[in-house]
């Protein structure tokens, strides 16, 4: 009877139920049209919980309940049970196990302020109702998308409760399915279009953010030209190789073998470079000691521009 009443109240609640289910379903990002097994499972569990709540209500002497109330209670119960499960899992993992034991649950319940001592008496109470197992019991298939290859089993010396090995693909070199593109033509094509796209995007961006000039009076966007900007020392930009080029040159230089003479020159140039910088230092600092040491280092170079600047003579008044 009471069950019937619950189910009575239940039928009109179907709509809302479905709504909430749908919400959940949306959250779990499955399509509305076809129910996935995990949704089914979820739905069944929820329905069982509702049955439980209803029977508990009957047990407490309610004849009827508003669907919203039942719904709220179900929600509460679900949260409560979830929390128990979560905490129990945490406790079990804390003690380096994978399967929760009774004690984990007990500690959890104690932690949540539940008196464990009463539970046995409650379980054996007279007016309790037995509820049949939920109709759908197949566990949701864990997504196996990432499982590749055979999972390794634990060697004999590792106790079974230790976590399993992770999926092999995470630590094993997996043979790729597709050959990498090694076709020269495609590669060049790709590199070229990539570079072109980058360049175009970059220049378009620059053109969008800065001043532009246009070749067509009526249209300024199709062929935007970054406006010419004058620089104070134009020859620097025009003559000095850009960073990119310098970097490239270093790379190619190291790969080329024919730069012996270059390095020779470089060594010689380096000397003179030192000389000139030192000379500047000497001029700036008026450090005669430094210039002495310099002349010791390089005795053969005698260039008037490297000589230290003389201090003014004190003029005697006539």
């Amino acid at each position, binding site marked *: 009877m009471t069950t019937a009443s619950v189910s009575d109240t239940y039928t009109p609640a179907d709509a809302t139920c479905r709504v909430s289910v749908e919400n959940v379903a949306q959250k779990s990002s499955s399509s509305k049209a076809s129910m996935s097994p995990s949704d089914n499972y979820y739905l069944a569990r929820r329905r069982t919980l509702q049955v439980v709540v209803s029977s508990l209500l009957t047990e407490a002497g309610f004849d009827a309940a508003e669907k919203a109330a039942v719904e709220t209670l179900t929600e509460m119960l679900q949260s409560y049970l979830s929390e128990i499960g979560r905490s129990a899992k945490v406790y079990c993992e804390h003690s380096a196990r994978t399967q929760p034991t009774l004690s984990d649950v007990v500690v959890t319940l104690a932690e949540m302020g539940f008196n464990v001592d009463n539970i046995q008496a409650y379980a054996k109470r007279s007016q309790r109702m037995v509820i049949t197992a939920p109709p759908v019991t197949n566990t949701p298939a864990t997504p196996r998308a990432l499982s590749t290859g055979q999972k390794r089993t634990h060697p004999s010396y590792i106790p079974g409760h230790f976590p399993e090995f992770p999926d092999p693909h995470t630590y094993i070199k997996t043979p790729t399915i597709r050959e990498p593109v090694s076709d*020269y*033509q495609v590669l*060049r*094509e790709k590199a*070229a*279009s990539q570079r*072109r796209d980058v*360049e175009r995007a970059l*220049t378009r961006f*620059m*053109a969008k953010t800065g001043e532009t000039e246009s*070749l*067509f*009076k*009526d*249209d300024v966007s199709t*062929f*935007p*030209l*970054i406006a*010419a*900007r*004058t*620089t*104070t*020392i*134009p*020859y*620097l*930009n*025009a*003559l*000095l*190789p*850009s960073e990119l*080029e310098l970097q*490239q*040159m270093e790379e*190619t*230089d190291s790969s*080329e073998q024919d730069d012996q003479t270059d390095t020779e*020159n470089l060594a*010689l*140039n380096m*000397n*003179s*470079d030192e*000389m*000139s910088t030192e000379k500047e230092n000497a*001029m700036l600092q008026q450090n005669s000691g430094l210039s002495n040491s310099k002349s010791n280092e390089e005795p053969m*170079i*005698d*260039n*008037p*521009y490297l*000589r230290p*600047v*003389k*201090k*003014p003579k004190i003029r005697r008044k006539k």
Partner: protein
Amino acid sequence: MNRKKGDKGFESPRPYKLTHQVVCINNINFQRQSVIGYVELTIFPSLANLNRIKLNSKQCRIYRVRVNDLEAAFIYNDPTLEVCHHESKQRNLNYFANAYAAAVSAVDPDTGNGELCIKVPSELWKHVDEMKVLKVYIEFSLDQPKGGLHFVVPNIEGSMAERGAHVFSFGYENSTRFWFPCVDSYSELCTWKLEFTVDAAMVAVSNGDLVESVYTHDMRKKTFHYMLTIPTAAPNISLAVGPFEILVDPYMHEVTHFCLPQLLPLLKHTTSFLHEIFEFYEEILTCRYPYAYYKTVFVDEAYVEVASYASMSILSTNLLHSAMIIDQTPLTRRCLAQALAQQFFGCFISRMSWSDEWVLKGISGYIYGLWMKKTFGVNEYRHWIKEELDKIVDYELRTGGVLLHPTFITGVKEKETSAPHLHFSIRHPHTLSWKYYKMFQCKAHLVMRLIENRISMEFMLQVFNKLLSLASTASSQKFQSHMWSQMLLSTNGFLKSISNVSGKDIQPLIKQWVDQSGVVKFFGSFAFNRKRNILELELKQDYTSLGTQKYVGPLKVTVQELDGSFNHTLQIEENSLKHDIPCHSKSRRNKKKKIPLLNGEEVDMDLSAMDADSPLLWIRIDPDMSVLRKVEFEQADFMWQYQLRFERDVVAQEESIHALEKFPTPASRLALTDILEQEQCFYKVRMHACFRLAKIANAMVNTWTGPPAMKSLFTRMFCCKSCSNIVKTNNFMNFQSYFLQKTMPVAMALLRDIHNQCPKEVLAFILDLIKYNDNRKNKFSDNYYRAELIDALTNSVTPAISINNEVRTLDNLNPDVRLILEEITRFLNMEKLLPSYRNTITVSCLKAIRVLQKNGHIPSDPSLFKSYAEYGHFVDVRIAALEAVVDYTQVDRSTDELQWLLDLVQNDDVPYIRHKVLSMLNKNPPFTKNTDSPLCNEALVDQLWKLMNSGTSHDWRLRCDAVDVYYALFGLSRPSCLPLPELGLVLNLKEKKTVLNPIIIPEAGACGQETVGNASVHGLISGFQINEEEHPAKDSVSVGSGVQGIKRKAETPLGSPLEPGQVLEKDEDNKVKLKIKFSNSQEDEEIDMDSVHDSQAFICHQLNILERPSTPGTETPTIENAMISMPAAPLPSLGKESSSSRHGEHHHHHHHEHKKKKKKHKHKHKHKHKHDGKDKEKDMFTFTSSPASGRSLNSPSISD
């Protein structure tokens, strides 16, 4: 004749000898761009009554002059500031050229003249009589000099040194007078002491040995002390001051290089080659570098790329490059080599007079050529000689001849003797057109090469050695300044050395090429006489057209026959046209035999193409280029093809490539393609072949089979084996193929299909080249390559098909052009982020955009170019942009743009840009004298006239550029757009001499004018009345004329009343003549050019009094008046006032006057009026309604 004079040794034109000069610049202010300093000249009088010392000085503000510590009076008079009197309405170039030549020679140090005349204080006269030394001390300053010294001051934060501000001296030929007073002659040598006080963070680089550098007392500045003990002429003195980075040459510690901050790595690379040049010159000349030190300074905004001065060279900073740059490397090395060659000949050995300049330019150019031969190889050398020869031949045939050794017989006007075809005088370097000057140098070294051909290189080098050792002996004679003239080289001295060393008489050669202008033009053809087995060669000469001369003498002809190559020397005589040359081989073919070439090589040839009857493979006229000539030779196409394939001389190959244009046949195509593929062939020949192949392909477009020319070749050489449309990643290690890779797409883009469009296939191919260009693995920069790919895109553009001149918009854009534009846009934008070396890509993009505009694909608009032409862009970019604007001006006839360009000429900060704008305008003039253009108006004439008359007095080169432009636009005679007839005829002096009454003189002028009777005069006469009332508002004109009138009153010895006509402009034209008369009556001389000079000087002198430019001290006017015995000049203010008040009163009289005068030439006027009435009608009507129209009724043409 100069040569005779040379026999006696050097005679100084000055009554004194300069032995030593001190130049001390105490202060250089970069902020204000000013310089303060003094000079002290030590001179020995060579005449007892020396009481005036003439020196050169321009721009300098002179504060005081002291001679041996006594204050001395001085006058400053520079007729070149304003060549023709500014009131003058003369506008014809003939007049200007004469006046300008007169003005220049009036201050020419080579004739003992100068702008600055110092009076020796009377206290010293006794001293002078004893020929004792005089020390002339001059304090001067320069304020914002427009010539002589160039300040580069970047406008950023920081101290001047941090900003990279620098200053350097520059000039064209002898221009030292622009920055300190001196004897600005190449023939006045002295020793030098140079002192420059500069900011402590800067370096002053100058000539001679840096003795020491000393801090000033406040330690904020340094003084650089230089001593130049080798006697040197003032024009070879230079200075560069800036925060330079110093690099001592690692191979030669006496050589120091300087560059601007941050460029040191480039400097190191650029100069790393210099020691080899030194070694080469010292070896061939067997003579050490004459100076103790050598300095190269790389500066920004350089006037010329290379300027050589005693012991230092000032070069453009744009010559610096890194190791990644290919194209600039040989160019820079050539510049360095040129600079060094001029150290020996030009700086160390100086010239005696301008007419000897060719020897120095010739020798330095010649040894530079030898260096080229050694460094770049014989092919490059011969190719260069051919290029230079073609250039000079082209120039001479176009403009009428370059005279290396102009001799001037006094009393005869230059125009009649030496260069009647030119619009400028060749008497002075400062009146020469820049192009002429360039060609002059070119011809000089070619002639040196001819002399070498004649006397052998060994003797040639011995001559140089002898000249150098003579000079170095002389230079070490420290206190015997009379010996120093040994360091001066004259034509005569040079020839004497040659005959002493070689014992050969080269007089005919000199006479042909040096004393006379023009080149030889041969037309050759031949026939083979089978019976006699003789080659009948016919050689005609054209010696009547412009720039040609007749050649008589030996001429080498090389005939390649089946049995070998044979040289024949023909004697070209007056009237022998035909030459019979015996052949050695029988015409019968011997297929198995190899054919020996000139160089001994034996090759197999496929002889099927040749004529079965003739054993001749090819014939070459003057293969060694031992005559300055142009040869047009006719031989069959197969002969050219054989010549191209088998002749090993690059010149022959070039010639045959050139000739094959006339034979667009499959055989020519094959020959060219073969050459293209042949790796042993000289790369420049192959590059030339590319372009020729494109031309041939276009000529045979209807029969062409296969892929577009060069495409498969390019694919084979530069594209990937596996995928033929993709180019290999760049690797420019092999320069020959690099140059070919660069050139081929450019040539391919010139291909056209039957619709005269660039084939789609070619365009797609070039776009692919751009797309797949990958430089990541390359050791070298690909900026030039990419730039040439853009050039290729540009070349592919053909004129748009336009319907009813519709406005160009995006919608009707040709799809091909859209692709091109896309690339150009991307390139140009990328350049902002990653600029390429010398911004080559921007330059190419700008050119491309202009071509697209010009062909009507995109709207023609100069604003983009104008923004790129602004100061602050790299100079190459500016030039490219300006070129586009010039082109726009020409095509669209835009007054605004022309005005903008002319403003740039007047106001731009960079002298090089000013020069370039004018030379581009000259090359691509907006209109010419024969075309009618709305641009051609009186305002423009006035503006240009002003520009060359007074606006460019600070830069000889610029002034000559302005003259060139004026010539290009208006020709020699009066511009046709001017309504006023010219009256003053300077040349017509004889006529004037008979006329005493100044009143008649205007008439005489008019008469002379009419007798000239050329077409342009017609227009002028009828426009007469228009001009008279022309611009009543033109106050300046009438005011000026008023001054003139008063002046004349004061001067005229006859004391005649002021003639009424004076107010009118045409009278002013005559003022010059009046003055001539005046000076005549005073000096009682015959009028010749000299007195014209004097009078010119006199006029300008007066002008100076009225409006003193930047010179000199305040006390001068009075001194001047005292010194030159002349009626006191009227006060300018008075003159102006009175003139304006008189203006109204006099015009009536004037017209009356005119009626009378004009009667004489009545008929002529009528005639002319008829002639021109139609053209001028419009103008007349507009003017009749003007307020001054009343006067026009009285004007001569109508009153007649």
